[in-house]
């Protein structure tokens, strides 16, 4: 499915938090239509990597190209406008709002423009929410209920549906099933498969190797802020990935297993 067009590329991407070298010199490429997993131990720098790409934080150094252009997003809104949708690890949902308000948070549909006091087009948002949820395969019984009253799985589904509804060029999922039970995980994976079928390029951060093998073409292993390996999902097994995650395999292995 992947074409030869490169949708996202990073070169020497680095992020230091004071003395903490959370991300060091990451070189990464994602082709259009490709699905890639980012794995690694807790604190390996996976979310940091995501935050630099999506403009949530400003990188220490390095370059990012997106869709053929070098980019420097000042905030998540700019990344979103460029076509990158992200489901952040700490669910970026407002608990006290209902489903349509959450889907359209920060990009509300407006009936009458009065600047910050613009009047909402609630009906249009509701209709598009229903359509978006349907297309993504998410079933929420009561859209008018605030997110607070929903299960973890339903909330995660809303978060993914929100990104899926608006995504145009790239979707990034940071541990989308981390806090979910078996059934809820399966439900979320179905939704992700639906997204894959639409051919949207995807980066998925996950600790769940079964899921990773199930969903992606390529696996990037982070270790201590560096990309320790880039592996073809069809050519490796779980033990090998674990070996890279834990550092049993590493440094010298990096060249050998470089993306073929």
């Amino acid at each position, binding site marked *: 499915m992947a074409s030869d067009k490169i949708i996202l590329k990073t070169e020497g991407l680095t992020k230091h938090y004071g003395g903490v070298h959370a991300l060091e010199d990451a070189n990464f490429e994602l082709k259009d239509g490709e699905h890639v997993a980012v794995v690694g131990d807790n604190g390996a720098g996976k979310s940091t990597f995501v935050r630099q790409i999506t403009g949530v934080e400003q990188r220490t150094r390095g370059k990012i190209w997106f869709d053929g252009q070098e980019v420097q997003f000042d905030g998540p809104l700019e990344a979103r406008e460029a076509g990158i949708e992200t489901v952040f690890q700490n669910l970026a949902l407002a608990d*006290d709002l209902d489903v349509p308000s959450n889907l359209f948070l920060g990009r*509300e549909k*407006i009936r009458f423009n009065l600047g*910050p006091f613009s009047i909402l087009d609630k009906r249009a948002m509701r209709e598009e929410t229903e359509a978006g949820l349907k297309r993504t395969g998410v079933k929420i019984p009561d859209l008018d209920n*605030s997110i607070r*009253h929903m299960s973890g799985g339903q909330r995660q589904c809303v978060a993914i549906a929100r990104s899926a509804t608006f995504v145009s060029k790239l979707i990034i999922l940071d541990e989308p099933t981390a806090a979910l039970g078996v059934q809820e995980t399966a439900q979320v994976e179905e939704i992700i498969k639906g997204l894959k079928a639409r051919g949207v390029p995807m980066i998925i951060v996950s600790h769940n190797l079964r899921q990773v093998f199930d969903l992606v073409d390529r696996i990037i292993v982070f270790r201590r802020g560096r990309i320790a390996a880039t592996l073809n999902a069809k050519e490796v097994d779980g033990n090998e990935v674990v070996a890279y995650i834990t550092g049993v395999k590493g440094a010298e292995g990096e060249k050998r297993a470089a993306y073929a």
Partner: protein
Amino acid sequence: MADATNAAMPVPDTAKKKHRSAEFNALIGLVGIALIFEILGWIFQGQSFLGNLQRLQIMILQVSVIGIIAVGVTQVIITGGIDLSSGSVTAAAAMIAMSFAQVGTYERAVFIDQGWVDLPVIIPLIVGLAVGAFAGLINGALIAYTKIPPFIATLGMMVAARGIAKWWTRGQPISFPTDAFAAIGQGMMPVLILLCIIALFVFLLRFTVYGVHTYAIGSNMDAARMSGINVERHLILVYTIAGLLTGLAGMIIAARGLTAQAGMGLMYELDAIAMAVIGGVSLSGGRGSVVGTFIGMLIFGVILSGFTFLRLDAYYQEMIKGVIIVAAVVADVWRQKRRALAA
């Protein structure tokens, strides 16, 4: 907001019945308290408490000025903030506005050199609103950009604005406003203004981008920021509007009493916050509504006039008020605990 919609919908599901809205609880409280006074009225006074139109009018008039402040404070609390400066800003706005509203035939307290003429009423009105809005703007900017807790920022404003109110005339009260200015405080005018403001803010919070962002920030500030909301700018707007309403309230009190004094509005901030909390606005942000605050105001009014009606000492009023405020906060904390367990 969502809670209110839930309550309005006939949902047979028992799981949802548990999420009875805080507004509804407050309404039950209001009816209960009113009925208690009704019964006590027949027992001790031999007359009806509620069946007296004049009493009901005075009741709502008594809370209308603080009620206007409470509407502004409600949206501040929904963002997860607090405003302790309302009482002092009331005084500062009243003093400064009044100095522009004095009749020309009377010696001015300030601006003596400006000649003794009546200024058109629009001038003091704009000045009063501007003073309130400016105080709110400073509150909001401090909170948004220095990240100091709203409690501290508005505490600073509480002290500073009181200072300004005293400094403006070196402690002298200002009296004799023009008839046009006095009109905003006469008769049932304050109630009328309150009702218009309530209607406006119910609309703003439910049907505009302003409302969604206010709830979103109080719900999850990081989520709001990640969604591209300019949280800093929005907070400044919310505090500025709260200040604006406080300025308006200050002018209404001055107009009603035909005088402005530096000591006026003492503890209004606490009454305003209490009205909101009693009406189900959660101090942890994200939940509550102006309708709830309105019910909170009415509870306040019923208690105030109920005690007067029963000829009970004002001391008891304050004690009972304190108990009710604490009870409302405890109820809020319990609601949150239940929700956390249910999630």
